């Protein structure tokens, strides 16, 4: 066998493997959509669960997840953007910056269940907030922070150096330069990264297990100190904790979560493409 034939075999093999990875993704989506779409109805979306969650809708879980996304954003977005500004615009290359970078990498690698334990230990018990939207959002926010910092940093670094130089030459201070020149030009990248980070937080189960998620709570939360149901935890409950849940309800709940996560992902991709087209430099 000559080198050319070996190459052909290898390339075909690698193509087959790539398809082998992608094919299950298509199959998974087909299974979910095929089994789940018949469950989608106004009642399923807007009603509370009934008969031990074997009938009715999933409205409290949808609302709970939306609250958690919002709460996570409120904490992680400002903190993440400010941290990214510090790293790109203020920090010099020294040991402190390196430690911050290592901390970001490790924060991104902490297992989600450890975030759950941490949230339980710090927010629920030590600060005595109790299992609540507040405790869950704070836990998810810390988990999302590395994603937002990394995305914001890339967006800030992509702003050309000359923009800053022109601003300085006109006599602007560093903060004026950052807030009036650099940040506005980095906003598209920051938004895209934030949406992607939040879409991951929306699908997480382990961090909310002990910090906010309620097994069954047929009413909407009255304050941020209330527990809520959440879609990912609800899927876990429906598939392992409650016997004989109709398949239609399981798949329907999964489809709603998948749709939510995908609307976020697609809008991030769309925004990225839109801003790239309008980019002036």
């Amino acid at each position, binding site marked *: 066998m000559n*080198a050319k034939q*070996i*190459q052909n075999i290898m*390339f075909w093999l*690698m*193509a087959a*493997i*790539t398809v082998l*990875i*992608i094919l*299950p*993704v*298509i*199959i*998974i989506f087909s*299974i*979910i959509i095929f089994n789940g779409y018949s469950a989608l109805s106004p009642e399923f979306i807007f009603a509370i669960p009934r008969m031990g969650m074997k009938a009715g809708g999933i409205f409290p879980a949808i609302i709970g997840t939306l609250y958690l996304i919002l709460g996570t954003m409120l904490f992680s977005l*400002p903190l993440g953007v*400010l*941290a990214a*500004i*510090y*790293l790109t615009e*203020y*920090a010099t290359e020294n040991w402190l910056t390196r430690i*911050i970078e*290592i*901390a*970001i*990498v*490790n*924060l991104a*690698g*902490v*297992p989600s*269940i*450890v975030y759950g*334990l*941490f949230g339980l*230990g*710090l927010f629920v018990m030590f600060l005595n907030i109790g299992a609540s939207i507040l405790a869950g959002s704070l836990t998810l926010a810390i988990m999302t*922070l*590395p994603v937002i910092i990394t995305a914001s940093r890339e967006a800030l670094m992509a702003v050309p150096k000359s923009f800053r130089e022109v601003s300085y030459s006109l006599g602007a201070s560093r903060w004026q330069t950052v*807030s009036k020149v650099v940040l506005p030009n980095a906003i598209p990248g920051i938004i895209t990264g934030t949406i992607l980070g939040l879409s991951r937080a929306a*699908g*997480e*189960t*382990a961090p909310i*297990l002990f910090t906010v998620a309620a097994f069954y709570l047929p009413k909407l939360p009255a304050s941020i100190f209330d527990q809520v149901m959440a879609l*990912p*935890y609800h*899927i*876990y409950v429906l*598939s392992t904790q409650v016997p004989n849940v109709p398949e239609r309800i*399981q798949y329907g709940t*999964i489809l709603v979560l*998948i749709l939510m*996560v*995908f609307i976020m*992902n697609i809008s991030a991709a769309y925004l990225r493409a839109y801003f790239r087209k309008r980019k002036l430099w």
Partner: protein
Amino acid sequence: MEAAIFMSGLIVILFVVLIFVFLLRESIVFFTNQNLLGVLSGKDWYPISDPPRFGFLPLILGSLFVTLGAIVIAVPLSMAAAIYISEVAPHRFKNIFKTGIELLAAIPSVVLAFIGIVALSPFIKNIFNLPSGLTALTGSIMLAFMAMPTIVSIIEDAITSVPRSYKEGALALGATHWQTIRRVILPAAFPGIIAAVMLGIGRVIGETMVVLMITGNAAIIPTSILQPVRTLTATVAAEMGEVIRGSQHYYALYGIGLVLFVVTFFVNLMADIFLHRKRY
């Protein structure tokens, strides 16, 4: 404002330290009451028997089995896909493949776990003729799928950042494209590949919902990949909800959290060191 910016930069360090401190604070009682070596090598995890036995070994081995299985499956497949996408695939397919892999990364783990229950586990059960399809192998396969997007994208980055001149040099000497990939590009991308594997391991060890739902959750020392196992993460997730706050069992679960934190910390640190090693 500038003070707030500086504080935000530092807060990341604070969070890492806080996580460590809280895990330690809640588990220190456990580790002072029990002998550390005895816990790490204890063969029995019977937290609610009388007297309770808190041996981590079955859980550590459970995590190890599932992780090894997942990495053995994920690494070769990811390498092939990353090489194909970055070097071989025709341009118009490239983006389709990349989107497909990004789509895989976007699926929440609880959804993958559900698919594992309804689609993969009956399949495993029938092929191997087992009493139950919820085994370490089932978990490994699903975790491999979860880890592949991370591994593929980092290997891809490593391959694309190999200087063009390396490739051109090899091709000019008469090497085929495949010979160039195997003898020149892959060796040059090696640190990046190691980092990808490390990050993959970090993700797999820490994954909770998939192993909780599809590995069968039996805290016994595994001897085969076709047995049900219970991982460190699944133990915390399954038992923390029912444990009495302030009991030895509660502190033991924080002890497991501490073990997980320390292990993933070093795995990620290693990955970062490999990623920052400049070779060209």
